[in-house]
């Protein structure tokens, strides 16, 4: 059995398991949809009161918002195993069992759960994204291929954060809430135009955590909107690749962590 077939089976089993508690599942799905919808209501209220967000119209902000939420929901669906890695694998010692299996630990953890709950966030993000394109005057033809490319880059980058967060658990044992700064905090930061942040934060969000490379710059290219800070438009066509670079770095770090792993349990 190759890794892909194995993953498909694990994913199938996980979907069945999640549908076992239908009441809870429905509540979670609705909750997820409503959370994200409400958070857009907050942004919309700012527009309603102030007319624009620092000179950006609602179409552009809706595209940014939709892009970052769709990307994150894909990573959330795939990467649940890394999210709970500290509490469910390192602290309990059950990571030892994964190490005994003749498969890549990354594949086994991806198969921990294929989470259905983020579908709510995905649908809502896609809906806002569509509305954003509809409201924007100069949507370019590049969007047709740039959109899937940016979403893939974004999903891969968020997956990289989750893997990096799991690798951190080799040191801290328990997962730390502080890494939510990069996941949920990343989503929060990604839905605003980059120009409204201070310079240190702009640099961090482009070169350390390539959030703007998978969200802000591709969105500018899709909307034919010149960058107020002077970055040329073609940068947005290439920049989603930085998401893959980020993932590769995190995987390297993960390998180092696994090589130095000392079991905490029985």
């Amino acid at each position, binding site marked *: 059995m190759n890794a892909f077939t194995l993953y498909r089976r694990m994913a199938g089993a996980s979907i069945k398991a999640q549908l076992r508690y239908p009441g809870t599942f429905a509540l979670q799905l609705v909750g997820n949809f409503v959370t994200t919808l409400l*958070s857009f209501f*907050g942004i919309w*209220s700012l527009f309603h*009161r*102030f007319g624009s*967000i620092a000179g950006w119209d609602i179409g552009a902000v809706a595209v940014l918002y939709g892009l970052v939420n769709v990307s994150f929901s894909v990573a959330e669906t795939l990467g649940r195993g890394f999210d709970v890695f500290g509490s469910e694998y390192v602290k309990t010692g059950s990571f030892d069992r994964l190490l005994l299996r003749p498969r890549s630990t990354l594949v086994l953890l991806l198969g921990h759960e294929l989470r259905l709950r983020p579908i709510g966030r995905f649908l809502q993000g896609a809906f806002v994204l569509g509305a954003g394109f509809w409201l924007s005057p100069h949507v370019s033809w590049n969007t047709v291929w740039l959109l899937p490319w940016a979403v893939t880059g974004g999903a891969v980058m968020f997956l990289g954060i989750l893997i990096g967060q799991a690798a951190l658990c080799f040191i801290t044992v328990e997962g730390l809430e502080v890494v939510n*700064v990069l996941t949920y*905090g990343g989503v929060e930061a990604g839905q605003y135009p980059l120009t409204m942040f201070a310079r240190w934060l702009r640099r961090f969000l482009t070169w350390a955590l390539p959030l703007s490379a998978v969200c802000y710059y591709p969105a500018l290219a899709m909307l034919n909107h010149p960058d107020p800070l002077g970055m040329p438009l073609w940068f947005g066509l290439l920049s989603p690749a930085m998401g893959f670079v980020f993932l590769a770095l995190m995987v390297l770090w993960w390998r180092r962590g696994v090589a130095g792993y000392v079991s905490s349990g029985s």
Partner: protein
Amino acid sequence: MTIRPYVTSFVLQWKIGLRYRLAVLAGLVAQMWFGAISLMAYAAVYHHAPDVNAPMTLRQAMTYTWIQQSFFTLLPLGCLPAIGEAAKSGAIVYDLLRPVDLWNWWLSASLARLLGNAVPRALLLALVAGPLAALVGLNGWSLAPPASFEAALLALVSFILGAFISASIVMWWNIVAARTLSPLGTYAVGTPLAVLLSGMLLPLPLYPDWARDLLLLQPFAGISDIPIRLYMGMPIPGGVVTALGIQCFWLLALTMIGRFWMNRTISRMELQGA
């Protein structure tokens, strides 16, 4: 009836909250980050539209955001984890067998959990966002002191009422967890509701005018929005009396309906694994 068992239940959960010092620090960093992003967003929005007559100044919006961030763990984000787990495993039967008033027993644990998490974080964040930020020259971005001595006293009373309202809402989530046999659903619904309706996402005064009065009248506003308005001395339609009145009304209503609902729930509960 003696009060001792409820005090014990409170002290136990309070100690659990204080146990994880690293988690407090980690939470502080997260709260500072989310606070900083919101502040930059508000600053950009306000500076770009100087002639819009907003119901609160930029300085007030910043203070509001800092206090909201410091009381994040005071919000009723879901059921008490211990009760949710007990509902799932069937261990909830032990709670049902205790010769104590179940509402007060769970309420004291819920309140202690909220306060044990929130108080250390709030003090630390207030220190960092207030005096320390002013010292390093970020005065315009810092947490402003209370409007006056009376405002500070009123806000303190109001915060205490708010903590009780929050614990009562947690009680409702506990009942939902006992009914659905899992804590997860309450987190999924409770977190977004609390984050939006308490003013954590966007200060309640900044919502569109048609929504503002409605938002003030719902129970979540009593947790932190009303205390913060009193702290900053912001006008509330009807003044202090309405402010505290709304809080007292919700505390009573949530308790009375909640007790009735809880008794109905446990009288017909089927226990899992018992």
